[in-house]
């Protein structure tokens, strides 16, 4: 794509280098730590699943009985139980749900644990490989019907079976991506509920069974529409790595997955979040799941004009963290948003400039562009007009993933017709302005070029300051989203463990090996 903003390549390079420096410091910490959620995710990938009669998931039962062993890695105990009992994974899960305490089983020699590990990892690799190749096969089979941007809508009824109806209808109207929004506050649960669910507030529980139900429905509608319909969920919160594991196994295609969102907006401890995001991104990278980062949220708490550079700075950081987790650019759906006050004179020019700036700087990345929310009111008619302007910028600047604005934003979770009207609006604009950017260029002193240059300058400045004090301190002082979080504060710190000598995790080893990540930090 021809670059039209003529941004300084040198400054872009500088921002990338600064980001690498900043995340490098954090990565040293990550490499020498694990979390209870990383351990539970590893167990899940080895086959641990199910729940006891009180609904406590098997991975949690295991982690609870081995609380003080997290620093050594919990997989060993599960594999040992398989080796010693001779049960298969399903049978063992049932026994654990019925009360078998695997921490009490004598440890076999490491060799038989290794043999079991090899068996289960082979099964895992086969399953993930099948998912990846099925998706790629369908994407190429239906390639001629692929639209750009991909149209992304949300379903959020609380009932997975009702969600299925809404999702199928949306897909037949033209949606390419369905996100099942999670129930309020699931991000703060330190376990993933089990089974199909029909009750939730403002969304539907993310469970492996719900993933499976929606996947099946979307596969059916994909065949009918001759478009591969992507499924999204939320890989964030205290169970970030576990959701990644479940999504990888059930062939989700995208995951909301940000390196700092949980810290800033859910008050989750920063050590926990940084460690969890790394592991979850390795899983996503292996399963070729596109991540969506959450920079749009910054602009709901801060001013979209004044704080535009915080979005770009965070995109560079998210990119760098993702790279460290072995992720290709083609999987990095960096986020940004159309969130300026609609009353600003020439605000559209700034929105256009920033969206194009993101496109030009991150040219291989499937950028995720978010609609107006902060200035949406109960005036659905004005809101519909604002969404039209958003659709224009999105298409004209070549965004990849477009989350459609709903005219009833700020009123209720979307009704079926709200979604249909949003899709109609987007399809109209996308079709009508096709080829727009190829027709135009920008004057040297134009607002559009100057605005992007200014945001890039401010970003380099900001990243320089962050590098000086370190990312932990930067977050503590409120440099992102105007939210201040102390390093020892927030939820989930008690679930972070330093890796002990002899830490054993065959899943981590498999992922690093597969993704070509050097296994630098073997314990202390």
């Amino acid at each position, binding site marked *: 794509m021809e670059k039209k903003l003529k941004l300084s390549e040198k400054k872009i390079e500088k921002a990338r280098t600064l980001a690498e420096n900043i995340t490098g410091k954090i990565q040293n910490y990550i490499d020498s730590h694990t979390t209870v959620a990383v351990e539970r995710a590893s167990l899940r990938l080895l086959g641990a699943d199910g729940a006891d009669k009180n609904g406590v998931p098997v991975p949690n039962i295991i982690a609870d009985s081995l609380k003080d062993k997290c620093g050594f890695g919990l997989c060993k105990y599960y594999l040992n139980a398989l080796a010693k009992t001779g049960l298969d994974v399903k049978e063992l899960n049932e026994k654990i749900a019925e009360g078998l305490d695997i921490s009490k089983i004598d440890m076999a020699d490491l060799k038989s644990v290794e043999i079991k590990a090899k068996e289960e990892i082979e099964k895992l690799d086969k399953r993930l490989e099948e998912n990846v190749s099925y998706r790629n096969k369908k994407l190429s089979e239906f390639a001629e019907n692929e639209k750009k941007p991909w149209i992304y809508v949300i379903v959020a009824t*609380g009932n997975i079976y009702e969600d299925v*109806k809404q999702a*199928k*209808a949306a897909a*037949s*109207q033209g949606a390419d991506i369905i996100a099942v929004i999670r129930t*309020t*506050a699931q991000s*703060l649960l330190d376990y993933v509920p089990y089974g199909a669910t029909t009750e939730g*507030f*403002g969304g539907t529980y993310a469970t492996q069974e719900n993933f499976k139900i929606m996947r099946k429905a979307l596969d059916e509608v994909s065949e009918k529409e001759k478009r591969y319909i992507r499924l999204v969920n939320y890989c964030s919160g205290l169970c970030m790595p576990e959701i990644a594991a479940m999504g990888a196994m059930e062939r989700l295609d995208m995951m909301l997955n940000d390196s700092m969102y949980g810290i800033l*907006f*859910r*008050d989750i401890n920063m050590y926990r979040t940084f460690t969890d995001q790394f592991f979850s991104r390795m899983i996503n990278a292996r399963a070729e799941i596109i991540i969506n980062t959450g920079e749009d949220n910054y602009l*709901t*708490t801060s*001013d979209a004009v004044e704080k535009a550079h915080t979005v770009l700075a965070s995109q560079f950081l998210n990119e760098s963290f993702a790279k460290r987790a072995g992720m290709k650019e083609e999987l990095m759906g960096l986020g940004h948003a159309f969130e300026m*006050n609609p*009353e600003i004179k020439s605000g559209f020019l700034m929105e256009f400039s920033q969206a194009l700036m993101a496109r030009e700087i991150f040219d291989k990345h499937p950028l995720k562009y978010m609609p107006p*929310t*902060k200035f949406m*009111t*109960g005036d659905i008619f004005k809101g519909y007009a604002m969404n039209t302007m958003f659709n224009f910028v999105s298409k004209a600047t070549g965004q990849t993933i477009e989350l459609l604005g709903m005219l009833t934003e*700020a*009123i*209720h*979770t979307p*009704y*079926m*017709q709200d979604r*249909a009207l949003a899709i109609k609006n987007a399809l109209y604009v996308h079709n009508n302005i096709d080829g727009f950017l190829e027709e135009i260029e920008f004057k040297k002193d134009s607002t559009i070029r100057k605005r992007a240059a200014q945001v890039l300058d401010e970003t380099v400045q900001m990243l320089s300051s962050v590098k000086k004090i370190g990312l932990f301190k930067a977050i503590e002082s409120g440099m992102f989203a*105007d939210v201040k979080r102390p390093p020892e504060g927030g939820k989930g710190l008690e679930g972070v463990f330093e890796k002990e000598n002899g830490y054993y995790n065959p899943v981590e080893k498999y992922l690093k090996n597969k993704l070509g990540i050097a296994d630098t930090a073997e314990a202390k």
Partner: protein
Amino acid sequence: MKPIKAYGDTLGDGAIQLSFTLPVSFGGKAKEAAKIYVQKMGFKSADIVHAEPLSEEFTFFVAYGKTDNYVDYDSVEYSEAVDKAMSMDEVNAFIKQNFKRKIVIVGACTGFDAHTVGIDAIMNMKGYNHHFGLERYPMIEALNMGSQVPNEKLIEQAVKINADAILVSQIVTQKDTHIKNLTNFIELLEAEKLRKRFILVVGGPRINNKLAAEIGFDAGFGSGTYAEDVATFIVKKMYERLSEKK
């Protein structure tokens, strides 16, 4: 008596636009059903001006209807929490003159609700739409606790910092979750015998002053509210309570 009806282009025509979805497949029968449905709502005339399929099982309609139903405007009872808001400067002057100290306000978006947009608009320094938030008011100590704050925690904090007023924000209203949460908040305060100690204000897009009063708050504010509206209510109410004591 002052009967009023919706106004389309002639006084008293009672013209209203509607849009809705029915769980039937698109076609002439669906349109006819939609028309009957609108008539059943009390519209003597009904025009289905647009119909289109949303899927094989659902159809969307845009309709216009005219109704004879009316409301007697004179019999409607409602009063706003604040008739005319003071400016930020006036609020500060009012506090200085009448209380001779800074007043303390704590606020949060409570329960499971994760949306900070409302409480931020009222409390944060920057405010919303060029109306500064309470943090900017020199004579107000404002503490914004953010979102997903349990009712217990908010009350605990209000006691700890000796707050004059508590602001509660509620955005999510699905399945009336806000009503349950707000009621629980009032019950907790009453159980602790703290109800009278604070001025209680609730805000959110689906909140109004009448609903707030029914639940037990001193005032409720809906969308379009700015910090000065809330501040004006609080200082006037404080003044009123102070005068009652004298």
